[in-house]
């Protein structure tokens, strides 16, 4: 009886661990698909689109996850095929320096103006 119980526990734990890894893959797949732009749709991610292009990309991402590729490796593969535009969240590289650094520069510039104004106001008082 004891042995039977152990077998049942072992069987269930193996079953659930498979379920867990499948769930994990599904979460990763959704995350990746939401970050890929559907290149033939207007303002839709591959996750949201039912186009043929999107369904092919979904299959590819599925296969790459099954092959054990990591999120960044899948993005790299897609970037090689379609360029940076295919990913919603672009990487920092020579083509995207302005995109990433301009808001920071504007923030610093605005901050400097506010700081200067506050200082001059305080001096007047």
């Amino acid at each position, binding site marked *: 009886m004891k042995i039977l119980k152990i077998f049942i526990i072992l069987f269930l734990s193996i079953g659930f661990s498979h379920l867990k890894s499948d769930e994990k893959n599904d979460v990763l797949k959704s995350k990746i698909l939401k970050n890929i732009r559907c*290149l*033939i749709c207007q303002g839709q991610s591959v996750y949201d689109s039912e186009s*043929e*292009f999107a*369904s*092919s*990309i979904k*299959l*590819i991402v599925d*296969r790459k996850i099954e092959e054990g590729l990591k999120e960044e490796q899948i993005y790299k593969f897609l970037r*090689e*095929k*379609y*360029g940076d*535009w295919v990913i919603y969240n672009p990487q920092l590289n020579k083509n995207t320096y302005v995109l990433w650094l301009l808001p920071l520069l504007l923030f610093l510039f605005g901050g400097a103006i506010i700081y200067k104004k506050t200082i001059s106001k305080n001096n007047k008082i």
Partner: protein
Amino acid sequence: MKNKSSLFIIITVLSFCFVIFYKGLNNSNTYAPKIKDKKNIPIFEAKDFNSSAYLNSEKIFEEDTFYIVNIWASWCVPCRTEHPLLMELSKNQSVKLIGLNYRDNSNNAKKFINEFGNPYSQLIVDNEGTLSVEFGAYGVPETFIIDKNKKIIRKFIGPINKEIVEEIKLIIK
């Protein structure tokens, strides 16, 4: 002085915005991936259109010649307009045409080939569209030129026309 500098900053910012938006107006709103560097052809295995046997990319591109990979489907209307031009290109001895049948019904595809002719020296099937993704395509029709070093050197999105055929002829000369 202060007013002048503020005016100058405002005008500069507005001019900058105007230039950006004006440039944007002239740009096409459809995205076309650019080929900056010559890319290697993908390594793949695909089903033969006629025999259903599996062929690998090495076997398909084994000859020391230029190749044209054309992605097509029987349901694709622009594919019909470019087909006579592909037939014309297939007469050229210095190039081989590889047809990639994209997400198609095999009977319809066979009817298409019987009706319009077969310009392809090798026809392979891409039922799931994943092979087209390996090539970096996102629709039909698309045409890729592959040089003797097995690198993708040119890509044409949409149906080819007479000007493109002339360009292809110059490349493969």
